[in-house]
């Protein structure tokens, strides 16, 4: 399992790096779409079918929105010639990233490895949850019963984004 996920993740990393360096914006957007679909496969392998459905639909819609934005623009990106300042910044950035990476490895050293997760708070969300919520799908049970307040917040965020898009995209700001 770990090996399969690692290989897919490796492809996702390559896709992500390609998306960041693509000369053409449309190919960058499509590459990031592929990374998103790779994530869908990982979700399926990790026994998260709910997430796979949501991710595949949301990824498609994001892709449509991004393509709609990119399509009628000058798509090519202007690349810069690296000067001395950017080289210094790169070295500095590399050191910071290496440090973060090192600390992350140190930090997760003693945590549960993949697959050895134990339940504590979610014990209740799994055992006997069907009787408590009546929902056979445990994720739905968590989303709409145990933690329905979070779900309201989530719906409100989407509502806010729609309201924000309407607000930002009106033609005239001031009378």
């Amino acid at each position, binding site marked *: 399992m770990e090996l399969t996920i690692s290989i897919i993740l490796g492809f996702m990393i390559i896709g992500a790096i390609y998306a960041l360096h693509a000369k053409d914006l449309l190919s960058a957007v499509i590459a990031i779409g592929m990374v998103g679909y790779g994530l869908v496969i990982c979700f399926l392998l990790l026994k998260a079918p709910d997430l796979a459905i949501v991710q595949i639909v949301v990824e498609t819609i994001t892709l449509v929105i991004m393509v709609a934005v990119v399509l009628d623009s000058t798509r090519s990106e202007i690349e810069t010639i690296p000067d001395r300042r950017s080289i210094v910044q790169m070295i500095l950035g590399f050191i910071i990233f290496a440090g973060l990476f090192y600390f992350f490895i140190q930090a997760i050293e003693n945590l549960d490895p993949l697959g050895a997760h134990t339940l504590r708070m979610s014990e209740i969300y799994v055992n006997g949850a069907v009787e408590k919520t009546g929902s056979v799908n445990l994720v739905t049970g968590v989303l709409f019963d145990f933690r329905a307040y979070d779900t309201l917040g989530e719906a409100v965020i989407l509502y806010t984004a*729609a309201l924000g898009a309407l607000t930002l995209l009106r033609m005239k700001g001031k009378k």
Partner: protein
Amino acid sequence: MEGMSTIVKKITQLMAGLIFLYGIYIILHGHLTPGGGFAGGAIIAGAFILLILAFGNSALNLKKEVAGSSNIESVAILMVTILAMMALLFGIKVFFFNFLPKGTPGELLSAGAIPLYNIFIGIEVAGAILTIFLALVIFKEESSK
């Protein structure tokens, strides 16, 4: 935005209906099978987006549509909030209390208020995504005039 060719329009009409039905199925079976309000709502929004892309704004009055979809999402999320407070009517001072009878797990009419939440969340998500998309399309149309 221009519409596409007649073949595309015909096929889209058929496909959009199927996708729409699939979205409704996903919403209604949210407590039984994978999926739920969010997935189903996004699928329904996808069906509408497909129609808009295929037919363009010549066949549709986008301004009217965006007002409609934003009203629908407001109503839907208001219903979710009211549903959350519904238990207050039954004298239980608890928000998000699952006040309906649970029924037999595994049947379509079970899990108390969860299917209701799923339906309203589904409508809200569909409305919100459609509003975002239409706002973008309208902006592109108007600013390129």
